[in-house]
């Protein structure tokens, strides 16, 4: 990769957006809106800020420091437009570090799409530590899409979320295209009275990818609830491990862990749903399955003229949706 190519921030932004499109391929996300000046955004290349747009109700305070990017995002009101975050490294080697703090003020609401893209990575690491505070009656939808190119990267996002009374947090991570490399995705959510959380991970591993997803929810408050769902595909020689833990503490709190992993070729999968109930009025359940793609489903699609590979791709696509 010629570094000169990325000397201009404009070109970098173009590349980041083009890779965001690859990460969110076949989703309903309109990545072309990142170009639009009306839309709020924060664009980071390596440990540098290359684009930022605030709007009414959104404060984005980001700084370049010697330890990487430090950003504080405050959502003050209900924001209709989605907020776009592009975190990328276009070079072959780099250590990207991002520390982000998000505060959703009382009664505020926002939808955030984050694109973590490392298209040319050979020796790229991306370490992100995020702390989200959702105040009373707020709602945050945070959806992360990854694209790690042909060789993969080392990616370690850690997200700590505190949901105050009546707040709602929906999150997902999607990494379906390209080679992942190594990913360790960690989410920890603490839920207070009447707050809700839904977390979904959809990751497809290939080559020698190592995938580890750990998602924890602590149902501290009365009537709090959480659903943790994972759909992991482990193909070729990749390894996928999922651990979902829910602790029911509050009265009438409800939790459910639903993990399904599909093994293909020489893939390896392990799934560990962990449930704890510390209050007899709480209820936490789980369902877990590891298996191969259903033979009858493959045969049905073959009988419509699809090849085995086309059939498996369609079945997996459905499962990951």
């Amino acid at each position: 990769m010629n570094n000169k190519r990325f000397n201009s921030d404009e070109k970098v932004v173009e590349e980041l957006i083009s890779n965001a499109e690859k990460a969110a391929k076949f989703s309903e996300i309109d990545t072309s809106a990142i170009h639009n000046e009306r839309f709020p955004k924060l664009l980071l290349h390596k440990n540098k800020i290359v684009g930022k747009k605030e709007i009414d109700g959104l404060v984005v305070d980001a700084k370049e420091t010697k330890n990487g990017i430090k950003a504080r995002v405050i959502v003050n009101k209900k924001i209709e437009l989605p907020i776009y975050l592009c975190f990328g490294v276009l070079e072959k080697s780099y250590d990207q570090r991002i520390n982000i703090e998000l505060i959703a003020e009382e009664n505020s609401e926002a939808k955030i799409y984050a694109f973590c893209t490392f298209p040319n990575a050979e020796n790229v690491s991306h370490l992100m530590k995020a702390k989200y505070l959702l105040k009373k009656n707020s709602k945050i939808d945070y959806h992360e899409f990854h694209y790690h190119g042909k060789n993969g990267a080392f990616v370690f996002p850690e997200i700590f979320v505190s949901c105050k009374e009546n707040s709602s947090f929906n999150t997902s991570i999607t990494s379906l295209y390209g080679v992942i490399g190594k990913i360790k995705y960690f989410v920890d959510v603490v839920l207070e009275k009447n707050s809700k959380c839904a977390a979904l991970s959809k990751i497809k591993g290939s080559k020698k990818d190592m995938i580890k997803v750990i998602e924890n929810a602590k149902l501290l408050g009365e009537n709090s609830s959480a659903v943790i769902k994972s759909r992991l595909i482990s193909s070729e020689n990749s390894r996928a491990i999922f651990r979902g833990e829910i602790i029911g503490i509050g009265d009438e709190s409800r939790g459910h862990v639903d993990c399904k992993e599909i093994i293909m070729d020489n893939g390896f999968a392990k799934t560990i749903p962990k449930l704890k109930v510390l209050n007899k009025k709480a209820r936490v359940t789980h369902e877990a399955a590891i298996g191969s793609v259903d033979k009858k489903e493959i045969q049905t699609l073959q009988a419509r003229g699809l090849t085995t590979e086309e059939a498996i791709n369609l079945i997996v696509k459905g499962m990951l949706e």
Partner: protein
Amino acid sequence: MKNQLIIKNLSVMKNSALLIDNISFKTEGRIFAIIGPNGSGKTSLAYTIMGLKEYKTRGKIIFNNKDITKLSITERAKLGITLAWQIPAEFEGLKVKDYLIASCKCQNLKNEKINSILENLFKEIGLKKDYLEKRISELSGGERKRVELLSVYLTKPKIALLDEPDSGIDILSFKLIKRFISKMSKESCVVLITHSEELSLLSENAVLLFNGKILKSGITREVIKAYRGFENE
């Protein structure tokens, strides 16, 4: 005869059990019926014609003068043979629309064209338009069955093997299914695998299977008569 299946001295085994024992017949007409009681080998025969690997065969299956006995499912599908399963697959998460679009693959249609085709077909088979966006796994057994028939129709097959197309279908929808099979038979040769006397009477010719053997073949009314007589014995 065009689009004819010829079964020659066919025996089928699965897990060392003999399911079909040296049968021979030819499909005749636009609709041909394979009838017989539960466990007679009808579904095993359909799976064998479709090419499911777990059914080991001896003998020959010939389609349009080509020996297809050794071909894979996809190869047979590309020659124009397809199957509607008695119990259709659930496809967790897959949308009805995506399944049906995949079934149209052979037709090379543009998206707008597919949408209008699907909307019209949904009316004919008694499904609401918004079912296109539903997931197959969310449908009832009867609804899934109708989607399965649509999927078969959309592949534009030369031979459509329909395994118990009326199972799980309510009385009102039965008429729609019957009409749809007649429509299908204008473009494809339909091989009906059925218990239903009413459905089998759509065909002119049939075979009666029992314990993996053919007890009677010929005009459908005659075959049904033989089946009734056999049941009364």
